[in-house]
């Protein structure tokens, strides 16, 4: 049965997977990040199919926006002899590839004809409001804890990445 939803899913899934495969196979770091943006955006599309509009918007903002930009900063602030590929470890790579494939197959056996009786749901109705209500009532404790987590990440990132004052003084002397 070829519905619009199915075609959309196939197209998005294809782009997501191609983006992922390119991420592994491209050699230039910048190209890898660009490939990843495609994956992130198409995953946002998948979320829309799954009636999670709010998550889709967040996905685009956080992943395609913030995280990609952070990664680009990371790449630009550090020098990359980026075309170099690993010299050693052909066997290790093969071994890992087989391991990951084995894991994939094992899980696939579990899910390929998974059948869960479908229940009606109203997720698409006022999606954002539902998330908000759940977040601010049921999950208020983890929500507040997340604010501590973000504060820790903020302080930590500043402490670790900041140039020290005496470093700057030394740099000026030189």
């Amino acid at each position, binding site marked *: 049965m070829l519905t619009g939803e199915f075609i959309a899913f196939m197209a998005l899934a294809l782009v997501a997977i191609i983006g992922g495969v390119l991420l592994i196979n491209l050699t230039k770091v910048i190209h890898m990040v660009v490939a990843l943006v495609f994956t992130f955006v198409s995953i946002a599309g998948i979320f829309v199919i799954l009636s999670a509009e709010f998550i889709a918007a967040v996905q685009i903002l956080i992943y395609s926006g913030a995280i990609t930009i952070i990664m680009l900063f990371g790449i630009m602030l550090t020098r990359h002899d980026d075309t170099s590929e690993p010299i050693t470890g052909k066997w290790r790579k093969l071994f890992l590839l087989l391991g990951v494939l084995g894991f994939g197959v*094992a*899980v696939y*056996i*579990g*899910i390929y*004809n*998974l059948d*869960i009786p479908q229940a009606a749901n109203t997720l698409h109705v006022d999606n954002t409001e539902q998330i908000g209500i759940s977040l601010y*009532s*049921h*999950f*208020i*404790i*983890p929500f507040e*804890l*997340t604010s*501590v*987590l973000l*504060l*820790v*990440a903020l*302080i*930590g990132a500043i*402490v*670790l990445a900041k140039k*020290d004052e005496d470093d700057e003084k030394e740099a000026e002397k030189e």
Partner: protein
Amino acid sequence: MDLETLLSYEWGTMAPEFIILGVATALSLLDLFMPKKVDRRILGWLGFTGILAAIVALVSLIGHDTTSILFDTFRLDGFAKAFKLILLAGAALVLLLAIDYEPKEGMKEYRGEFFYLFLTALLGAMMMSSSGDLITLFIGLELLSLSSYILAGMRKKNLQSNESAMKYVINGGISTAITLFGMSYVYGLTGTTNLKEMSLILGNIADPQHVYILGLAFFLIFIGLSFKIASAPFHMWAPDVYEGAPTPVTAFLSVVSKTAGFVILLRLLLAIFASVPVQGDGAEPLPLLLRMQDYLAFLAGATMIIGNVIALRQRNVKRLFAYSSIAHAGYILVALTTMSYFMFDAIWFYLLAYLFMNLGAFAILQLITSKTGSEDIGQFAGLYQRAPVLAVGMGIFILSLAGIPGTAGFIGKLNIFMGALIREPAHFVLVGIMIVMTVVSYVYYFGLFTQMFFRPAADDSKLKLSPGITTVVVICAAATVLFGIMPNLALDFFHQNFNGFSDFLQ
């Protein structure tokens, strides 16, 4: 939900968490506004007072009934109280070490951050031990992990510290993703994140395919969490991170973080997987968790062997203790594998004993490595001549780590043996491996021992003791001997107050 319902919960039961959170916030503000010249050590003492206050608050809650706030996103049960006591005591001792920590290149500038990141990590660990909801457990875990990543990289001009933090983040990120992947399947098959509801729903599961997926989820969650407790197959980060991180952070990782890892592991495994019935060959369906015993036993055995055998050829003391802590995680996994009636007692007591003996050893290790700037095992030579008190203390800790009678470590191991043998069928192989590996561990523990007592010192100067480290050594040595001779003090306390965790899933 209106304000009234929200206020009707007993928020008082969260007092220890609120105290830690409040102190951490206060420290971060103080650190910001205090003049630069003021010694930041005062913040450490404030943090220490905060932890003591939290312990007092927790002790006053011990008699309190099992309380659940907001659908179990926070719950105070016997399990939570028992393990939070260990976490808080460990964190208090580690903080004493951190106040006295004086690395070669200095860390004056970041001492303030150092202290309140310790507290946020502790907060994460405490939330992990008192939550019955997947999401809170996950956020607590990440709060602990993120704070530890930063702490490990705190000596930012030290290349080793940088590298250890980098390895820690990468390994931690991969393990988090694996755990979450497992959790997502569990969520999918139950439709809830509440552990109690999960165990009810999973108790009626019959579809073999669902059981298969749950089996996979079990492995994913276990492998992901084995990172936190530093056991096989996710142990390889431990030696590198332990070596590179500042010593108090290493102590924190090997005691508090490991305890928290076992806490979340117990919560998840027992709540989720103990209730899944699997139709076996026999007539009676067995819980999935018992089906997995063989795999758990294999991993526990592998962890003990890897930890003890590789420790044999270490010259660096911090690496030596990293492998030794892997081995100890293996011993505790034996208790988890056998699932005897004594499992909780055995694990709790072992973690308590491990807390004192390991922290004591790290206190002395910190003193010696920061005095000499070298982490080679030779630095311990002639410690008995240079500082007899320290040498005797270290002797007690090593004897306890090795599991010699008269120390807490021995009782802990004995409990685990009994649990493994009392069970039908008894786990003879696992107990055998544990005994052999304990004997192997004598080699490296007593290597350290001979260095301290029978080798001449390179320089005979007396070591100067700082008050913080002396306090930690004295407390730990006293506790190690006390619980070695009178283990019933701890065990009776445990049985009287926590009721064998009968309220685990209520």
